[in-house]
C-alpha cells in the first residue's frame, strides 16, 4: 500500500445484521445482512463518497458509526480508539466529534421548536457550562456560517424552504464543533438549483473549518464532484473503491458499470 494520510476514522470488518423474525414454528429466518464485513478509512480533512442503491447498506454504515444502528461485529477506530463497543454515556464525547446531516430536511427538524431551540440543544448537552447569552451568540454565528440571516432565530421549521431547512440541519451539526460529519444524502431531496448551493456551502465549510466528510448519496455526479475517494456499495459489501477518476473512468465491478450506465448523459 502506498503512503496513506493519517486516518481520522478506520472501519475494520464492520457488520450490521438484523435478526430474522421467528415464524409460527419458532424457526428463525436468516438474519438480514445490511452491512456485511466492510473496511475503509477516512483520512483527516478529506471527503469519502459512499454510493449505492437503496438497500445497499450505505445509510446503515453511516448510522453504525455514530451508534444509531447496532453493531454486530467489527471495529470502528476513531484516531486509533475503538468506539464501536462503548455504552451511551461513554460514547458522548465522540458524538461531539462526529455529527450527522440527514436526507430529509422536512422530518429531521423538530416542528415545535424554533431555530434557537434546535441549535441550542446540542450546545446544552455538550457545553453544559455555557451561559444562555453565550449560547444565543453562538447560534447567531452558526446561522451566519450557513448564510442565513440572524433574525431567523425565532422562526419555526415550517417557515423555511427545503434548502433553508437543510442549512439549519448543517448548522445544528456544526454547533458542537465536530471533526467528522456524516452527510446522509444531504442534497437528494433538493431542487438542482438549491442542490448546487448546499454542495458549495458544504465545501466552503470544509475548507474553513478543516472538516472531514463521509458523503453518502446515490447521485454519482454529485459524489464525483465532492469526493477525494469513492466507495461503491452493493448488497452490504463494498464492491469497488478508488479515486473518482479511476472509478468513473475505468469501473471494474459490474455493479459500478450498471450504476454508471444508468446516469443520464447530456
Amino acid at each position, binding site marked *: 500500500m502506498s503512503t496513506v494520510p493519517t486516518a481520522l476514522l478506520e472501519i475494520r470488518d464492520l457488520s450490521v445484521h438484523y435478526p430474522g423474525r421467528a415464524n409460527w414454528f419458532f424457526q428463525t429466518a436468516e438474519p438480514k445482512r445490511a452491512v456485511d464485513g466492510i473496511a475503509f478509512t477516512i483520512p483527516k480533512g478529506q471527503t469519502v463518497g459512499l454510493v449505492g442503491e437503496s438497500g445497499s447498506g450505505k445509510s446503515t454504515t453511516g448510522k453504525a458509526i455514530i451508534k444509531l444502528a447496532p453493531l454486530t461485529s467489527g471495529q470502528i477506530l476513531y484516531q486509533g480508539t475503538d468506539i464501536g463497543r462503548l455504552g451511551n454515556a461513554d460514547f458522548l464525547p465522540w458524538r461531539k466529534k462526529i455529527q450527522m446531516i440527514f436526507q430529509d430536511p422536512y422530518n429531521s427538524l423538530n416542528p415545535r421548536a424554533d431555530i434557537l431551540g434546535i441549535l441550542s440543544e446540542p450546545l446544552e448537552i455538550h457545553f453544559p457550562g455555557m451561559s444562555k447569552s453565550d449560547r444565543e451568540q453562538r447560534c447567531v454565528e452558526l446561522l451566519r456560517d450557513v448564510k442565513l440571516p440572524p433574525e431567523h432565530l425565532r422562526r419555526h421549521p415550517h417557515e423555511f424552504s427545503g434548502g433553508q431547512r437543510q442549512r439549519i440541519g448543517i448548522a445544528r451539526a456544526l454547533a458542537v464543533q465536530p471533526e467528522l460529519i456524516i452527510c446522509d444524502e444531504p442534497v437528494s431531496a433538493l431542487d438542482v*438549483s438549491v442542490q448546487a448551493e448546499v454542495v458549495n456551502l458544504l465545501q466552503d465549510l470544509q475548507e474553513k473549518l478543516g472538516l472531514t466528510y463521509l458523503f453518502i448519496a446515490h447521485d454519482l455526479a454529485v459524489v464525483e*464532484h465532492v469526493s477525494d475517494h469513492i466507495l461503491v456499495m452493493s448488497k452490504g459489501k463494498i464492491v469497488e473503491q478508488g479515486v473518482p477518476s479511476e472509478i468513473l473512468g475505468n469501473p471494474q465491478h459490474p455493479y459500478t458499470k450498471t450504476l454508471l450506465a*444508468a446516469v443520464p*448523459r447530456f
Partner: protein
Amino acid sequence: MSAAPLLKVQDLGVTFRSSGKETMASANVSFELRQGEVLAVVGESGSGKSVSALALTRLLPGEPTCTITGQAWLDGRDLLSLDETEISKVRGKEIAYVFQDPGTSLNPVYTIGFQIGEAVRIHRHEVTDVDAAVIKALEEVHINDPRKVANQYPHELSGGMQQRAMIAMALACNPRILVADEPTTALDVTIQKEIMDLLGRLRKERGMSILMITHNFGIVANFADHVQVMRHGRVVESGTAEHVMNHPTDPYTKGLIACIPRLGQRRRRLTTLSEELSKS
C-alpha cells in the same frame, strides 16, 4: 408529424385565493402536444408546473378557492368548459396521471389488483373480465409475477415496483395522454433508467403522448421532443429539447443547466443559479 395537435393549451392560468389573498400559481401557459410526442415541463419547486398539469382535468379545488382561466382543447373539445360528469370521463380515460411519490399516491388498504381494477370498472364498461385486464396491465409494465403482485398491498412492494404499479394503473384505460409528474425523482438511478425505458417503449408501441414534469435536465435531453421552462408561474423559454439544451437563451434556463454537476467534468465549485442570473 404536422397533424393537428391532440392537446392545445392557450393562456392557461391558475390563481388560488385564501383568506382574501390571491396567489397566482401560473399564468399565460400555452403549449401544443401532438400524438406520440413528449413535452417536458421543467422548473423548480413552486414554478407552477404541476399545477398547470392538474388544471387540465381540474384536479384542483373548485371556486372560490381556485380559479382556472384560459382554454385547453383536447381534440377540439374545451376541457375547461366541461361539466363535472363529462370531465370525470376524461380523467383517467383520456388523460391519466402518474405522480412523484408512489408510496403516498397508492391507497394503503387496498391490494394493487383492486386499485388497477377500479380504474377499469369505472372507465371501461365493455370489459367483462376485469381480473384479466389487471393482469395484462401488470404484464405490460414488466412485472414478473403479475398474479402475486395483484394480490399484494402497496407496502409489500419496493419503490420501483410501486411506481410500475402506478403506471400500470394509468395505462389500464388506454389513455391518449399520460401526465408523468416527476415519476422518477424518488427513485434510484438504476430504477430511474428502467422506468424511463418503460415509458419510452409504451410511447412507441401505443403512440401515447407524454407530458413529463421534471427538474432533471438529463431526462429532458434523453427523452423529450419539446421542452418548456417555467419560473414563477410563467413560461420563460420553450422549443425543441435539443435546441433548448444546446442553445438556451433565457438566463434562468442557462442557470438551471449550468448548476447540474456532470459526470467526468469535475469543477472546483458548482455554478449556482443566482450567480448565473446576476451575470445577465
